[in-house]
């Protein structure tokens, strides 16, 4: 299962020699097994891809990268009323873990945590270069960050779920559907 070498971290993040097809395919396949939909888009096409993915009304937190932005139809400075009324929440994902199909959602002061949590659909935007092979690589990355900046993050795999009501149901307290827009 873990045949891919752990990436080494440099100052810019994880070095990727071009597009790692095997790694992406593994991530996509694992994520799909939890019902997550994936869309690939170039930086310039991300806004359109997000606009296609969302169900309005949508709220979001600004993406932390210079070359990609959210479409206008996403409210990026939401109020609690917006949180309650929205169907979709859009946030960035800092990292993704290929062999689990997980995305890592860092908590931001802009409110990425409630935006990714309260609505039926969560759209996560992920840079393909932030894909790591396994849990060990993810914790190597997060360990440094947690000690330095004392931040928090959620390793999210598929939508929220419960089996407490006698059968598996998706959409327990959190989103019932997750889409990942992969910026390649």
């Amino acid at each position, binding site marked *: *299962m*873990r045949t891919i070498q752990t990436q080494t971290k440099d100052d810019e993040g994880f070095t990727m020699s071009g597009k790692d097809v095997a790694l992406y395919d593994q991530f996509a396949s694992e994520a799909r097994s939890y019902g997550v939909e994936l869309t690939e888009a170039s930086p310039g096409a991300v806004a359109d891809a997000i606009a296609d993915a969302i169900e309005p009304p949508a709220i979001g*937190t600004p993406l932390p990268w210079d070359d990609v932005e959210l479409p206008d139809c996403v409210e990026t*400075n*939401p*109020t*609690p*009323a917006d*949180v*309650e009324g929205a169907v979709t929440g859009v946030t960035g994902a800092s990292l993704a873990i290929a062999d*689990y199909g*997980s995305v890592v959602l860092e*908590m*931001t*002061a*802009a*409110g*990425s*945590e*409630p935006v990714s*949590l*309260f609505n039926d659909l969560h759209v996560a935007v992920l840079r393909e270069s932030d894909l790591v092979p396994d*849990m*060990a690589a*993810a*914790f*190597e990355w*997060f*360990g440094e960050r*947690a*000690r330095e900046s*004392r*931040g*928090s*993050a*959620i*390793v*999210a*795999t*598929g*939508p*929220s*779920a*419960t*089996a*407490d*009501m*006698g*059968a*598996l*149901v998706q*959409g*327990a*307290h*959190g*989103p019932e559907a997750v889409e990942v827009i992969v910026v390649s």
Partner: protein
Amino acid sequence: MSSKRDSKAAHIRHIMETEGEAVGTNTRGFNAGRYESVAKLEDYEALKEEARAIKADAIERLPELVEELTETVAENGGTVYVADDAADANQYIAEVCAENEADRLVKSKSMTSEEIEVNERLERDGVDVVETDLGEWVLQVADEAPSHIVAPAIHKSRAAIADLFNEQFDPETELETAEELTSFARERLGELIQDADVGMTGANFVTADSGTMALVTSEGNARKTVAVPETQVAVAGVEKIVPSVEDLQPFVELIGRSGTGQDITSYVSLLTPPVDSPTVDFDDPDTPIAEGDTDREFHLVLIDNGRMAMREDEDLRETLYCIRCSACSNTCANFQSVGGHAFGGETYSGGIATGWEAGVHGLDSAAAFNDLCTGCSRCVEACPVGIDIPWINTVVRDRINTEDDPPVSFLVDGLTPDAETSGPGLQKRLFGNFELLAKLGSTFAPLSNWVANAGPVSRALEAAAGVAHERDLPEFQRTTFREWFEAREAVPPVDPDRKVVLYPDLYTNYMQVDRGKAAVRALEALDVEVLVPSVPGAGRAPLSQGMIDTARDKAERVAATLGPYVDAGYDVVVVEPSDLAMFRGDYERLLPPESFEPLAENSYEILEYVYGLLANGADADALNVTDGETVAYHSHCQQRTMGLEEYSTAVLDSCGYDVTTSDVECCGMAGSFGYKEQYYELAMDVGSNLEDQLRDADCDHVIASGTSCTDQIGDLLGEEPTHVIELVAPDGGNA
């Protein structure tokens, strides 16, 4: 005594009738999921070893880690409070609530909060405490206790939850499906979370280096519990601390797989509180959340409540490695039948609960269910941190025995020449001193068999010692295996390939003599020299009753007898798997290494040994070969834990048999357990799964490896199966 056993039997019967089906379906599903999920890991065993090493190190350095974590959390802007006990913790949490003028506290699932009963304490102060985990909320509405440490409402069916909600809340449209129930609960709890003042969580792990806590969840309620209110309280046992963030990795990979059979749960929250996320104030709906309050309050309440003393207790210490994954519950055949309402104490349930309850609530709480661990050992390989859970159960049983009054009957003392300095009680001593019973039974066979199974004696044994009258007692043979061996006129192989001491375990020697004879024939046919010396019982029977001193005494005598043979180059071959498990495993606890190691290294299960002979060039044609006869095989629980099942199936395969194996964890008999009056029905319930599988297999032969399994299958099918060696030994298994 007898009425105590009657009421125990009645309690177990009631739980099986009302909750058994839901618990059984769910736990067996989790258990099957575990096997599937861990098989996907590239190196499951290495990951478990890594996890265990991290826990061992953390518990070793616990005082230092508590100090480090306290400083780290203070740096982060939070507070650590180390509470000596439940009352201390509750007082602190009540003060936090009072200072915040809290009307409502919302909670995510936390067994530690159940342990300290914080809900009741806060409710006394007028705080509205709301469980937000859907399973916990169901129980809060129903006013019931958890029956499972991970899936607390596992005993309730969908229909029962629907009835509960419809009755309690009288919704406009009657609720029926799991989707409707979930959606109803989500709406209702969502509103309650919105205006909560304090959010309380547990913590699966807390890292000393950064103050990061990991919460392993699937529903999203823990995330909301942290994200919305301004004040967060986390309640965690001191044992939850690990040194660094990177140490979380093996646990995150193991916990879901080991518990509910999920590769990973939906959310693993890695929170370094007080978190940076702004609070969401639904009372102020129009101020952007980015302008919300980030000046959060965080209190980490670390609970001692007996844990630091457990750390000093050599036998209970490993309990603190437990990550509460529930693998030991789900894999346990008895738990699958009754769940945590019978197999559990004040707070915790399942195999490891004996350690927790003894440590945090005391021996009385552990005593209520400790007998339900039969020592089958299936939980040991399932435990992601490799805790020897049966040993903890044995030790606690011994301590409970010590608390009981010693028996006064001279008859009992005569029949129970054990090394116990105190009183395990008549039932335990009767079964624990099985060696003497077997000797007497054999000497007076067949008379003793007729008498023991005759109505009046059978009833008297039940009344006095709690031996279930439904069971036929083991049938003792007049000529023991050793007597047969000594008297036979056989020519040993000239120039044998190997030399073997065939251990005359009590069951083979006094009752299942035919399997001993078959073992001799099979070994000699494969050019092995066989000796059957007089060796004492292995001590399995007393150990299973928590009579550790007696077991140690037996172990010392066995090692003293077999040691010289091992030194002289003999291999020790064992027919009874539970005795081999003593030699290879339990003796490590009972003997010094110089006695334990040579015996453990040179002991083999009979079919493991035959397999080795065949693999080294012996010819299977010397055995009883067939062309495609079908066999249904139930391997022994401890044999499977030792990884030895495959040798039996491989030898059967080499001999031309077409083998179907059972996949139940245990037959239900488990030594003397199924003979005990109060557990007879449970043992038969556990056995019914095996019965179904063996009947469905519809094979030419039914075979087993353990004496208990043989007895149990005999009772289930009405015909006693033979041992594997009897099928493959030459001459068709007849002497």
